[in-house]
């Protein structure tokens, strides 16, 4: 192996693949009523929350795991998982950042999110979820001043039960599909955001998820409510350590936008994708759904998916309010043996609703990538329109790229336009770049970044830089 190859080898190694030695409290292995009661109990939840969980569990018993997706995976033994895992030192919750376990803080530093610095420098309020419990929420004072609630889900259940009760499960009901219902039964923590009427959130809100303990699933639940005429931009980043076994991540994210409100939700997902032989890695089966409840509301999803062994998710918008807008921007990159089946659903119910879908898929190595989307314009959704563009880029002939859009138009006043192309990087483009002094890797990086530009532009500044680098790292070694 010459030095260049070694360098590539080094780069390919998962940057975030370290584990932190912290004592964990775990619920007993397996999924049953007692475990759910254990979780609810340890989190000191009120009765209605426990009822919510048990109702979901009852329903779950009747449901079957879906299997229509393109990437198949070995059967998951749901009785062989830990459904709750919390760092022990969390038992008595720290009051401020200084009281945090220094090891935890170090972990975040390795991840590149030193809480204090990043908070101060970027003006981003960070809510970090470590395994299943939200560790610390920075920048609280500033947010409180505006009346914004940004805290962990468990805290919200204690402190703002009325809000949680009113909105939790309204977009993703407990009667939803298998993984969403599983989450409703056993979710441990997550973020809760409430933006009061008329408030434009002055900073980007951000969460960092990290799966640490082995054999745990991460089931976080996020609920964001933007009240009338408010605005919020929310960032989510994900990482996980390297492990040989596959780990399940089944989160639920619910967004609710009332009249004239806007929610922007950005994700950079970089879970451990497994090694180059496809061993290990995260199963990322997430349910994300936004409801444009009020008129003139807007929900926009932006995602950069570079990690996970299997990504299987469809961030969706239900456009219920008149004149509401749904947007979906996505870059999905798969390399080695990664598999992705992702896309979006735009369900038009209100009048004059608009949606836009831009999806860019890049597959390299032995990977398989599927865009699957639904555009459904209801018969009452007069004068609605949708525009969809999904482009795929293939690198090598051992990978696959697929496009499966479902288009349903039941309204004659409405327009749907859909375009898709599949191609590879042309020799001419590569030649041109190399002629001007770039090496093949750089040339590919440049071209791919150009290919993704429309989506990268949608990301907030700090994330855009990270995402651009991620795009580069993910494709290292896939050329030639």
């Amino acid at each position, binding site marked *: 192996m010459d030095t260049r190859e070694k360098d590539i080898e080094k780069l390919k190694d998962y940057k975030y693949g370290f584990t932190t030695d912290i004592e964990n409290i775990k619920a007993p292995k397996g999924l049953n009523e007692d475990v759910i009661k254990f979780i609810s109990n340890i989190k000191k939840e009120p009765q209605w929350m426990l009822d919510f969980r048990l109702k979901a569990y009852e329903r779950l018993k009747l449901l079957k795991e879906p299997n*229509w997706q393109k990437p198949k995976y070995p059967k998951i033994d749901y009785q062989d998982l830990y459904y709750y895992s919390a760092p022990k030192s969390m038992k008595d919750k720290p009051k401020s950042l200084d009281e945090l376990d220094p090891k935890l803080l170090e972990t975040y530093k390795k991840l590149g999110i030193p809480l204090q610095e990043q908070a101060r420098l970027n003006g981003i309020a960070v809510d970090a979820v470590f395994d299943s419990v939200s560790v610390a929420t920075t920048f609280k004072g500033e947010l409180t001043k505006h009346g914004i609630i940004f805290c962990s889900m468990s805290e919200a259940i204690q402190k703002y039960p009325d809000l949680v009760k009113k909105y939790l499960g309204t977009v993703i009901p407990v009667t939803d599909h298998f993984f969403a219902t599983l989450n409703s039964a056993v979710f441990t923590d997550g973020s809760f955001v409430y933006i009061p009427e008329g408030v434009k959130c002055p900073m980007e809100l951000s969460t960092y998820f990290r799966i640490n303990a082995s054999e745990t699933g991460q089931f976080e639940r996020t609920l964001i409510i933007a009240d009338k005429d408010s605005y919020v931009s929310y960032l989510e980043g994900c990482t996980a350590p390297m492990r040989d076994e596959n780990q399940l991540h089944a989160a639920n994210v619910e967004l609710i936008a009332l009249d004239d409100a806007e929610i922007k939700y950005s994700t950079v997902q970089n879970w451990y994708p497994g090694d180059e032989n496809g061993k290990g890695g995260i199963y990322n089966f997430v349910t994300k759904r936004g409801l444009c409840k009020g008129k003139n509301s807007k929900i926009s999803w932006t995602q950069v998916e570079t990690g996970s062994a299997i990504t299987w998710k469809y961030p969706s918008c239900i456009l219920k309010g008149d004149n509401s807008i749904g947007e979906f921007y996505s870059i999905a990159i798969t390399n080695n043996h990664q598999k992705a089946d992702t896309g979006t659903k735009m369900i038009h119910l209100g009048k004059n609703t608009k949606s836009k879908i831009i999806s860019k898929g890049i597959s390299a190595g032995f990977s398989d990538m599927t865009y699957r989307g639904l555009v459904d314009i209801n*018969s009452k959704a007069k004068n609605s329109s949708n525009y969809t563009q999904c482009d*795929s880029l*293939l*690198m*090598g*002939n*051992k*990978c*696959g*790229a*697929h*496009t*499966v*859009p*479902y*288009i*349903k*138009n*039941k*309204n*004659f*006043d*409405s*327009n*749907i*336009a*859909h*375009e*898709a*192309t*599949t*191609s*590879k990087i042309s020799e001419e483009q590569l030649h041109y770049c190399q002629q001007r002094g770039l090496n093949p890797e750089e040339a590919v990086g440049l071209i791919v970044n150009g290919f993704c530009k429309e989506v990268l532009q949608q990301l907030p500044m700090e994330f855009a830089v990270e995402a651009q680098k991620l795009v580069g790292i993910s494709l290292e070694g896939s050329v030639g």
Partner: protein
Amino acid sequence: MNEQLQSDFDKLVKTSKFSSEEIKIKKNFLNNFIKNGFPNRKQEDWKFLDISQIIKKNISDLSFFNGYSQSNKIDPSVLVDVLEHNKIIFINGKIEKIDFNFEDQNKIEIIDETKKDMSFEYENSLIDLNSAFIDKIFKILIKKNYSLKKPLIIYHLTNDKIKSTNINLRLDFELGENSCLKLIDYFANTAAKNFINIFYNFNLEKDSILKNYKIDKYRNNNLKYSFNNIEQDNNSVSETFILSAGSDYFKNEINCNLNGEYSSAFINGIFSLKENQQHEIRTTINHLVENTKSYQLIKSVLGRNSKSAYQGRIFVNSKAQKTDGYQLSKAILLDETSEFNAKPELEIYADDVKCSHGSASGSLDENSIFYLMSRGLNYQQSKELLINGFLIDVVEKITDVEIKNLITNIIGLKQ
């Protein structure tokens, strides 16, 4: 329904001269069908239009044994008279006339024996039904280097003498090297509430050309399913045109395997639907080797209470570099109650390919109508002119001039 199937099958076995081996094979198909029943919406391919529900709603007394021996007078008024052609006439599912008068009889062979090897691997219970109840498979062989001088029209006629509510039909075509066949399927039904299940199997050898035009224009209350399987060798060309406008329900399914290099497939279709019609086209093009090409264009005009669906799938094997695949579906919705569904699918495993699809649906452009009206046309005329222009695009793709004119006239389009 299962008892009916069983007893009708017994009747068929009694009246036909099948060998015991054939009966065994047929029984297998029958059992498969009994096990699976009619396809329903739980199957991905039948998601948009659920045929089991549609049959339940429209045909109350399903019967499958077509014990039909009467000979019929062919009503000459239904025959196409503007075009000289060879004909095969089916009345109520039975062959009434075969006429290849324009051709060199040595170059065409028609075999009507039951073929022992009927097996066909495709997950579709309607094919099982077809294989169980057909008594003959007609095989038409076109010999090497022979091009038919005139097109062949296959008439699919029904009248009130029909004995069963289900007709199954199967034809196999073998196009020898460098041969050419122009085939028109022409539907004219006077009987109503029948389910007609047609299965064609084409084998195109090197350099051969197949042009298949399916014309279902005249309004009738039947349900139809047509399945074309096309196997293509090097440099062969298949062109399929579908006019889907007459029946209550019509699903055209085309499975095309491009097995030879430089082979190409073209599929063009028009849906022109109104009152309670539900039609679907589903295509699967498998690009299996290098340098193959496919092109699909489907347009719908949808009136009151009608529904059309297009499911197109382009599959590109990892060996099939330099593939060129294209798909476009467009729909005009004329009424609040019309509905258009599409699922244009790409499944690609090779990197040096050019594949794209597009789909657009909406109402007629008000600005265009305004433009035409400002030039003196009334609203209705403007609408008609725009629809005419929208559809003529597809007809223009027909490569045979005579047939193009015929179809233009049948649809009633203006050039």
